[in-house]
């Protein structure tokens, strides 16, 4: 083996390894409920073994952690952990996994542990460049573990941030590094699956925050949002330096969902159209009423020029990443490959609504509270916020293959 084995993997190392499809084995020592809810995923399923560390302690029967793991592996896990590929030891916060790594090292396994554990991985961000010219730059800022995508559109030193995620440092760091000022922040819709960084980033940057007014009402509570926002209108133009973005109201996933287009080049679709899926219409609890709206909105988007590059709000698998490391494809490409758009082309409104209703994934209880947080109706502690966001989003339709990571 020419490559030197680093005993500690950061979340960035892990992402690089997943993107490069390196082969490794995951030994996850969190408790079983945590493992079932949220685990590492690659383009293909990763070989993995989940044994809670306290079970290793009991099975090994020694006083000290490392000794117990050594005894446990020797006596009980013979043959279950491969010797021909690296074993990545993973826990919740990255402390216990280091003891496990030491034990595996003592047993001559090729091994590393994940620094900061699944918590750090869940909060890891990466940034891809969609385009970077003096006239227009677009950056895709994403959270690999959650499948959430957000965007920074910059021109002439000014920037608009679309769907910023909960942690602000990726946007503030990017602004500083590239030398632009964040002059506007917006959410394409009131998110159900993750906590928006929108109002916080707007306050931090001294920029206005924009949201469609229909999404400033919690759909279940039917209570108005308490957050400060500027109401987005259908057809409204947002100027960023030389660039104009036009808002298109496309209700369905939420009542106030908007897409944004930059002439015939780029289309920010929110969650409506993703690479491998289309949005589910039921996260407001009104699936029957919202599904026909969703159909009409998708029709409107599908009629736009096919060469436009779709920049979605979510991805469901690293498989959707293109060769440039981006989650992006032209509308024409998606009409060929996206199961939801294929159905859209074949079905009447009635048939398409039935298709939507027949493929609703399970509804996660957390989503009601997350919408409350995003409307300013609930203010969770950092721990609670982190817990609400655990695991991967399920904003897409089941039949569209977006739901591998659902509640599990």
């Amino acid at each position, binding site marked *: 083996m020419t490559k030197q084995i680093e005993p500690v993997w950061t979340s960035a190392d892990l992402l690089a390894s997943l993107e490069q499809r390196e082969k490794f084995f995951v030994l996850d020592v969190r408790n079983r409920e945590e493992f079932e809810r949220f685990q590492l995923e690659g383009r293909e399923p990763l070989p993995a073994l989940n044994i809670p560390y*306290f079970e290793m302690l009991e099975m090994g029967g020694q006083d000290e952690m490392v000794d117990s793991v050594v005894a446990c592996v020797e006596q009980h896990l013979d043959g279950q952990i491969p010797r021909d590929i690296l074993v990545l030891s993973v826990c919740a916060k990255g402390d216990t996994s280091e003891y496990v790594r030491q034990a595996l090292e003592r047993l001559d396994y090729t091994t590393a542990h994940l620094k900061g554990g699944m918590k750090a991985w869940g909060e890891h961000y990466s940034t891809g460049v969609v385009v970077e010219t003096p006239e227009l730059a677009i950056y895709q800022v994403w959270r690999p573990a959650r499948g959430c995508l957000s965007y920074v559109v910059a021109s002439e030193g000014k920037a608009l941030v679309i769907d910023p995620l909960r942690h602000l440092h990726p946007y503030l760091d990017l602004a500083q590094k590239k030398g632009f000022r964040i002059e506007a922040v917006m959410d394409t819709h009131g998110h159900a699956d993750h906590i928006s960084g929108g109002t916080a980033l707007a306050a931090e940057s001294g920029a206005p925050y924009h949201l469609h007014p229909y999404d400033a009402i919690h759909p279940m509570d039917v209570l108005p949002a308490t957050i400060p926002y500027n109401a987005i209108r259908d057809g409204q133009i947002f100027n960023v330096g030389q660039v104009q973005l036009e808002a298109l109201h496309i209700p369905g996933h939420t009542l106030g969902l908007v897409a944004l287009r930059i002439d015939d080049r780029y289309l920010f679709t929110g969650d409506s159209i993703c690479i491998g899926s289309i949005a589910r219409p039921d996260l407001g609890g009104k699936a029957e009423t919202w599904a026909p709206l969703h159909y009409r909105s998708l029709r409107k988007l599908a009629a736009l020029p096919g060469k436009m590059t779709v920049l979605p709000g979510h991805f469901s698998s690293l498989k959707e990443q293109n060769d440039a490391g981006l989650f992006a494809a032209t509308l024409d490409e998606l009409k060929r490959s996206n199961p939801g758009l294929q159905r859209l082309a074949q079905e009447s409104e009635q048939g398409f609504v039935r298709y939507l209703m027949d493929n609703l994934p399970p509804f996660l209880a957390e989503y009601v509270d997350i919408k409350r947080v995003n409307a300013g109706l609930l203010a969770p502690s950092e721990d609670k916020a982190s817990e609400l966001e655990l695991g991967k989003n399920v904003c897409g339709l089941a039949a569209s293959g977006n739901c591998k990571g659902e509640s599990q």
Partner: protein
Amino acid sequence: MSQAFDRLLDARGMNCPMPLVNARKEAGKMEPGQVLKVLATDRGSVADFQGWAKIAKNVELLGQEEESVDGANVYVHYVKRIA
């Protein structure tokens, strides 16, 4: 819950897995029937003590509490040695 106990383990400030590793060592020194009270600040210890008590043959989890001490959350676990 005002649970009587025989030993006290202060694992506040310790990260996973040490609260549980140390509690297990303490329990190993106790007589069957005795109770260990564990103080921890690691939030993950709540689920982990439950999982551990389920599979360990010689201990039982009598109860768990959450207290706030000087603004910090303290998780209290009562572990009884049963065999």
